[in-house]
C-alpha cells in the first residue's frame, strides 16, 4: 500500500446529468471493484475529487450511503477545477480520495425528529442525509425538509424533491425567493418563511442546515427562537481546502481550534458559537 | 513608371522595422529601412541613478545581447570608477560574452537565416526538411544559454555580473559541464559547414566595404579590444568612438544612423573576420577553408558565413577559457569594493552584431549625469540601406516577390537587433 495519503483512486464518470444552469450531477463509480465494495461513507462527508491534469477539490457526497455502488456529486461550475470537470465527457476517469470529514452524527440523531433546512447549493450535502433517513425511515420520527432557492430555475433536484411532496411519511416544503416568471406553484419567500405554521418538538428534533453564509444567520435565529438547543443544530461548513485530511491548514476556524476537514464539515452550532471567524 | 517594393514588417529579426524601396524608370530612387520600434529613451532614464543600478537597467535594451550590454556597461562604469578586476573575473566575463555570442549566432544562423536559404518560413518548417540540422542548432543554442545561466545566473539579463566581479562564482563542476558541452558543440557545428558552403548566395555589386571592429593587442582574435580599427586605415582609442560613429538622426527611423567620413560602415562578424581574421587558428581557421569563405568581400550575405566561423571560434575559445578557469580554481571571490566618484568611463565590446559602446559620466555621488549607448545595429543602418540599394540595382529583373525576399535577406544577413538600435 502506498504511504502517500494524498493519492487518489481512479473512478469513472458513468453519467452526467445537467440539473440547473452550471450545476451538474456526476454519477461516479470507482474503477477498482474492491474499492466499490469497501467504500463506506456517512451522510455529510465529502471526497477530494481530482480532474486529472487540472487539480483537486473537496466535493460533498450527495448520494446516500444506502444507495451503494455509484456515488453522486452535484458540482457547481465556479473556477478552474470545476470548469475542467465540466469539460469531461461521460465515461472519463477521475481521481477520488476519501471519504473525509465527520459526517452527520447519525447514531445520535436516530430516534429523533429530523429537520433539514437547505438554501441553494446547501441541498447537496443534505440530500445524502435526507435519503439516508428516508431509506431508514423507521429510525427517525418526523422528517421535514425546508428548501429555499432564489428561483425555480435554480432549484436543485427539483423533480426528485417534488415527488417527495406527495409522500405522507415526511413533509417537504419548497420555496423560491422569486418566481422570476417561471413555472412554479409552490411557496414564494425565503427559506425561513417556511417555519411559519410548522410545529416543532425542539427537544426531540435535530436540525441539519446548510446554505450560503447569510442563510446560517437567519436560520439559526429562527431555530433558537423555536427553542432548539445549540447542540441540536447541525451545520455543514465550507472553507478553502487543499488536503482534506487536516494537514494543509487552510480550513482552520477559530485559530485552527477546529479544522473543517477533519473536525467538520458538520458542526453543531454549540461547537462553533464562540469561535472566531466562523459565520 | 515607379515600382515599389515594400516590407511592412521584416520577419525573423528582433524588433519592428520595415523596408521601402522605390524604383523610378529603372533607377533606384529611394531605399529606406524604417525603424518603427518605439523609443524608450533608456539613456535618458538612467539619469540620476547610482552607478551600480545602471548595468541592470541598461541591459534591458536588448534580450539577445543582454549579456554584452551588461558587461559593456560594467566596463564603462569600472573605467569611470577606476576599478580593476581579477583575472578570474575577466575570464568569466569573457566566457559569458561567448555564451551570449554562441546563443545569438546559433539563433541567427539556424533559426532566422537558414530558413531563407532553404526556402521555408521558419525553423519550425526547417525542422521537417532538415531535422538533424535543427537539432544540432538548438543544441548549440541551448549551450549558449547554459553558459549564460551558469556564469550569468540567467540566460537573459544575467544578474550575476556586477561591477567589480560576480555575485556568486560558478563551481568547478559547472565549468566542467560547460567545457564538455563546448566539445559537443564543436562536433555539432561541423555538419553545418558543408551545408552552408553549398548555399546559393544571391549576388550584387558594390556593397558597403568599410569594415570596423575592435582589435586586441597584436595576436588575439577577440571580442575585446584596446582600439577601434577601420578597413580604410583609421584607428581610434575606445574613448574616441564618437569620432567614428558620428550619430545623427534621420526622419524615417527611430534609430540614429552612423557614418564614418560621410560613408556607411559595417560592424559585425564579417567586419571582425575581415579585419582580424588572419589572427584565427585552429578549428576556426579550418572552418573558413571548409566554407570556402574568401575575404574581403562586399557581399553582406557572407556575414552568415562569418557568423558560422565565429560560432566555431567561440566554442573553441569557450572551451579554452573553461580549461584555464579549472586550472586556476574557482574559489569564491567577492566583487571588488567600489567607491563612488566623479568621472567619465567608456566600455566597448564586440557584441554578436558588432561593436557596442557605452559611455557614462558620473557625478561625485556616482550618479549618472550623462549616458550614451551606440549599438551595432544603429551603426549598420546606413550600410543596410546602401546594400539594399546595391541588391536592388543588381537584381532589377526579378519579380517583386523575389526582390522583396532578397532585400529582406540583406537585412537579415546583418542580423539586426532593432530594439538595440532604438533603445
Amino acid at each position: 500500500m502506498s504511504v502517500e495519503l494524498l493519492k487518489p483512486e481512479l473512478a469513472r464518470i458513468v453519467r452526467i446529468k445537467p440539473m440547473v444552469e452550471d450545476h451538474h450531477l456526476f454519477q461516479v463509480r470507482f474503477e477498482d471493484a474492491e474499492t466499490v465494495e469497501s467504500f463506506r461513507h456517512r451522510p455529510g462527508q465529502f471526497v477530494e475529487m481530482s480532474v486529472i491534469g487540472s487539480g483537486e477539490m473537496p466535493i460533498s457526497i450527495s448520494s446516500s450511503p444506502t444507495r451503494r455502488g455509484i456515488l453522486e456529486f452535484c458540482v457547481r461550475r465556479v473556477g478552474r477545477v470545476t470548469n475542467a470537470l465540466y469539460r469531461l465527457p461521460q465515461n472519463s476517469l477521475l481521481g477520488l480520495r476519501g471519504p473525509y470529514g465527520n459526517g452527520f452524527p447519525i447514531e445520535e440523531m436516530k430516534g429523533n425528529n429530523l429537520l433539514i433546512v437547505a438554501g441553494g447549493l446547501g441541498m447537496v450535502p443534505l440530500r445524502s442525509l435526507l435519503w439516508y433517513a428516508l431509506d431508514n425511515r423507521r429510525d427517525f420520527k418526523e422528517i421535514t425538509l425546508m428548501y429555499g432557492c432564489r428561483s425555480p430555475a435554480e432549484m436543485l433536484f427539483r423533480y426528485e424533491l417534488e415527488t417527495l411532496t406527495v409522500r405522507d411519511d415526511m413533509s417537504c416544503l419548497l420555496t423560491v425567493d422569486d418566481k422570476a416568471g417561471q413555472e412554479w406553484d409552490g411557496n414564494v419567500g425565503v427559506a425561513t418563511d417556511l417555519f411559519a405554521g410548522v410545529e416543532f418538538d425542539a427537544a426531540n428534533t435535530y436540525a441539519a442546515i446548510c446554505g450560503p453564509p447569510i442563510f446560517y444567520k437567519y436560520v439559526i435565529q429562527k431555530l433558537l427562537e423555536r427553542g432548539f438547543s445549540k447542540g441540536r443544530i447541525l451545520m455543514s461548513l465550507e472553507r478553502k481546502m487543499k488536503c482534506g485530511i487536516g494537514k494543509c491548514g487552510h480550513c482552520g476556524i477559530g485559530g485552527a481550534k477546529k479544522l473543517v476537514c477533519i473536525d467538520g464539515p458538520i458542526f453543531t452550532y454549540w461547537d462553533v458559537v464562540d469561535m472566531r471567524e466562523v459565520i | 513608371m515607379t515600382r515599389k517594393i515594400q516590407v511592412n514588417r521584416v520577419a525573423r529579426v528582433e524588433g519592428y522595422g520595415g523596408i521601402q524601396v522605390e524604383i523610378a524608370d529603372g533607377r533606384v530612387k529611394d531605399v529606406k529601412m524604417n525603424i518603427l520600434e518605439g523609443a524608450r529613451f533608456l539613456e535618458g532614464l538612467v539619469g540620476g541613478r547610482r552607478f551600480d543600478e545602471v548595468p541592470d537597467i541598461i541591459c534591458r535594451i536588448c534580450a539577445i545581447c543582454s549579456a554584452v550590454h551588461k558587461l559593456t556597461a560594467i566596463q564603462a562604469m569600472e573605467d569611470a570608477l577606476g576599478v580593476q578586476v581579477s583575472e578570474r573575473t575577466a575570464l568569466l566575463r569573457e566566457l559569458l560574452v561567448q555564451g551570449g555570442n554562441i546563443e545569438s549566432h546559433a539563433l541567427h544562423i539556424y533559426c532566422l537565416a537558414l530558413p531563407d536559404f532553404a526556402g521555408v518560413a521558419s525553423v519550425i518548417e526547417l525542422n521537417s526538411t532538415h531535422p538533424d540540422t535543427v537539432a544540432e542548432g538548438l543544441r548549440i543554442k541551448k549551450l549558449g544559454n547554459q553558459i549564460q545561466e551558469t556564469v550569468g545566473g540567467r540566460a537573459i539579463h544575467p544578474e550575476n555580473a556586477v561591477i567589480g566581479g560576480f555575485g556568486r562564482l560558478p563551481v568547478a563542476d559547472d565549468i566542467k559541464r560547460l567545457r564538455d558541452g563546448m566539445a559537443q558543440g564543436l562536433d555539432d557545428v561541423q555538419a553545418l559547414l558543408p551545408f552552408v558552403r553549398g548555399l546559393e548566395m544571391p549576388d550584387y555589386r558594390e556593397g558597403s566595404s568599410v569594415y570596423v571592429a575592435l582589435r586586441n593587442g597584436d595576436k588575439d582574435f577577440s571580442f575585446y579590444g584596446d582600439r577601434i580599427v577601420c578597413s580604410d586605415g583609421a584607428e581610434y582609442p575606445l574613448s574616441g568612438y564618437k569620432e567614428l560613429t558620428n550619430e545623427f538622426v534621420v526622419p524615417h527611423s527611430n534609430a540614429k544612423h552612423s557614418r564614418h567620413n560621410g560613408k556607411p560602415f559595417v560592424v559585425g562578424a564579417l567586419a571582425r573576420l575581415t579585419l582580424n581574421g588572419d589572427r584565427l587558428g585552429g578549428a576556426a581557421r579550418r572552418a573558413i577553408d571548409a566554407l570556402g569563405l574568401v575575404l574581403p568581400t562586399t557581399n553582406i550575405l557572407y556575414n552568415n558565413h562569418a557568423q558560422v566561423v565565429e560560432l566555431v571560434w567561440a566554442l573553441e575559445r569557450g572551451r579554452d577559457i573553461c580549461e584555464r578557469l579549472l586550472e586556476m580554481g574557482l574559489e569564491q571571490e567577492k566583487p571588488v569594493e567600489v567607491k563612488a566618484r566623479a568621472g567619465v568611463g567608456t566600455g566597448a565590446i564586440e557584441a554578436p552584431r558588432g561593436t557596442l559602446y557605452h559611455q557614462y559620466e558620473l557625478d561625485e555621488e556616482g550618479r549618472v549625469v550623462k549616458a550614451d549607448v551606440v549599438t551595432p545595429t544603429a551603426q549598420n543602418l546606413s550600410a543596410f540601406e546602401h546594400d539594399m540599394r546595391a541588391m536592388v540595382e543588381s537584381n532589377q529583373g526579378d519579380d517583386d516577390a523575389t526582390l522583396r525576399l532578397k532585400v529582406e535577406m540583406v537585412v537579415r544577413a546583418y542580423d539586426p537587433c532593432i530594439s538595440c538600435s532604438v533603445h
Partner: protein
Amino acid sequence: MAKPRIGIYGLTGCAGDQLAILNCEDELLDIVNAVDLRSFSMASSSNPEGEIDVAFVEGAVCQQRDLDELKEIRSRSKLLIAIGTCAVWGGVAAARNDIDREKLKEKVYGPSGSFLESLPVKPLGEHVKVDLAISGCPIEKEELINSVASLLRGDLPLLVSFPVCTSCKMHEYECLLVKRGQLCLGPITRAGCEARCPGLNRVCRGCRGPVDEPNAASEVALLKERGFDRRDIINALATFAAPAEKLAEQIVGKEPACQSAQDASQAEKE
C-alpha cells in the same frame, strides 16, 4: 479538438519574452506542434494572423503605433496574455513617466528628433483588457511552459503569487536585507524566479513586479530606518514597476502609513 490558434507579439521592449519562448530549446517544437501558430514574426515569415484564441503580447505601449497594434490584436483575440514585466507593469521604460516625453526626446535625440512620436509608457492593462499576466523580466521558462500546458488543456495557468522572500526562505538563502543591510525588494515582489538574485548574493530589484497586495509603505519605511537614501529607495521601487510602485512614494510622502514610517520621517526632519 482543433489546435488553439496562437499569436506571439512584441510591442516596445527588449524581446526578452519572445526570446524566452525561443529559449525553450527542448520544448519549442512540441509547443508549436500542439498549436496553430498564427503569428510570431520574430521567428517566422509566415504569419497569417486572423482570429486567434490566445495572443501573447510582450512589451509596453510606448508609442501610438504600439497602441494601435495592441488594440488590433485585442480585437481578434479571445484571450490576451501579457507576458513580461513591460507588458504587465510597464518595465524599465516606464520608470520615469514623470519626465515630459518631449524633454526626454530632446535629451536623447536632440532637436532633429522632434518627429519621433512617443507616449508615456504604460502596461497593456492600462489600455485594453488583459486576461492573464505572466510577469518576469524576462518571463521564466518553467512558468511559461506550465502556462502553455495549462492553456492547452483549457485551464487558466496557476501562477505564483507569493513574495520573493518566501522563495528565498525555501532555498535557505541568507537574507540580504536583514543580515547584510542591503536594499532588497523581495518582501513586496512576486516570486516565481526561485529567488534568483538573493541566490546570487544580489538583492531583488523587483523585476517581476509587485505581489497582489504589496505593503510598499512599510517596505519604504523599513528601508529608511536602515538608513537608505530616499532617492535610492524610490528609484529601486520605480525600476521595473513604476506605474504600480509610484504609489509607495505617495503613501509615504503624504501620510506616514505606519509607526516606523513616522519614525523615519521624524528622523528626516531632525
